[in-house]
């Protein structure tokens, strides 16, 4: 094949690859848009929810398009963050005793955080960068339901994530003779 034609084919192949990645990355909108729509519909501050939702969507699509392991933490982080978000929205709709609400939200948050750390431990391994990005996305999703109150859920989730993932990070830290997992960041 003519070298110039081959070069052109290579460029086209790279371009179609990136477009293909972008197409796959945008599928996260199927999960995220209903979550954000719920937060806008039932939350106290729909404009804030909409802004946060757009940021989460852009970040999620960007990380999924980039790949290299970052894509694997997005969906678990959103799912885990949606639990305290839902609890926060319910609290907005059905106000309960403040102390009970606080304890409940903290528990839900911690449970969600621990769940996230264990579900994503294969994707993230002992890499702190992946863990912190996962927390950020989960926290952002949780904050959709916490805008009108219910920050306890968000704080609880961050506490749970930090505790559980710290334990994993320390426990799974590679020993001097062990080689690093190629899939970590």
């Amino acid at each position, binding site marked *: 094949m003519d070298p110039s034609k081959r070069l052109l*084919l*290579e460029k086209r*192949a790279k371009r*179609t*690859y990136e477009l293909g990645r972008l197409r*796959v990355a945008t599928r996260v909108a199927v999960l995220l848009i209903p979550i954000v729509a719920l937060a806008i519909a039932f939350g106290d501050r729909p404009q804030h929810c909409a802004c946060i939702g757009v940021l989460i969507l852009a970040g999620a699509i960007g990380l999924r398009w*980039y790949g*290299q*392991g970052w894509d694997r933490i997005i969906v678990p982080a959103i799912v885990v963050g949606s639990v305290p978000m839902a609890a926060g929205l319910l609290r907005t709709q059905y106000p309960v005793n403040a102390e009970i609400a606080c304890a409940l939200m903290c528990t839900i948050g911690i449970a969600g955080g621990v769940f996230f750390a264990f579900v994503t431990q294969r994707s993230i391994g002992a890499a702190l960068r992946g863990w912190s990005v996962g927390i950020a996305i989960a926290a952002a999703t949780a904050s959709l339901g916490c805008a009108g109150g219910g920050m306890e859920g968000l704080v609880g989730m961050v506490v749970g994530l930090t505790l559980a993932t710290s334990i994993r990070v320390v426990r799974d830290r590679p020993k001097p003779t062990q080689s690093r997992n190629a899939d970590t960041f």
Partner: protein
Amino acid sequence: MGVAESTFATVRCLEASTSKLSVSDPSEELREQIQQSMVRYADGHRDAFQLLFQQLWPLVQLFSIRALGNAADAEDAAQCALLKIFSRIAEFDRTRDALTWALSIAYYEVLTIRRKTHRRREDHSSLEGMSTTATGESEVIAKHQMIALETSLLMLSEADRDLLLSTIDDDHNSQIAASSVVRKRKQRARVRLREIWRTLYGSF
């Protein structure tokens, strides 16, 4: 030359062509290299592009030329197939064999080009190489099946392929005398061939 001997010769010829692409065992090592490059590129490691392109492009070209015969049509099919492969790499299932997956996409591109060519020829009322008579249609079907069989055989490991093709070479008495171990290995090779056929073309 009978169908079986023709298949044997074609597969040996294609093996010889693809063996230039790798140093030691051509089929297994190349397949493994393609698998690793494909998985890396599917994971988003952009530096894997060049190696994957260099590995895949000759194989896709070879496959298209063998399937279509016509160099111009084969080039079109190969380019379309390659672009389709790269557009779908992000969705590649890592548990599948990369080479099989890529060539199955190439196969459908070949079929598309073949259909377009057939329609073009019908429109111009000239059925070059094809016929609407019963005999002509059966020849076309037989040719399709040959190509499908050759592709499936190429997807097998070298050991399995040698075993199955040696069945064609062996005479009847030798087959009877073959040990139960050899018979079992041939049976397993046939099962693997059927699985590859089903993956590429559906049920028999």
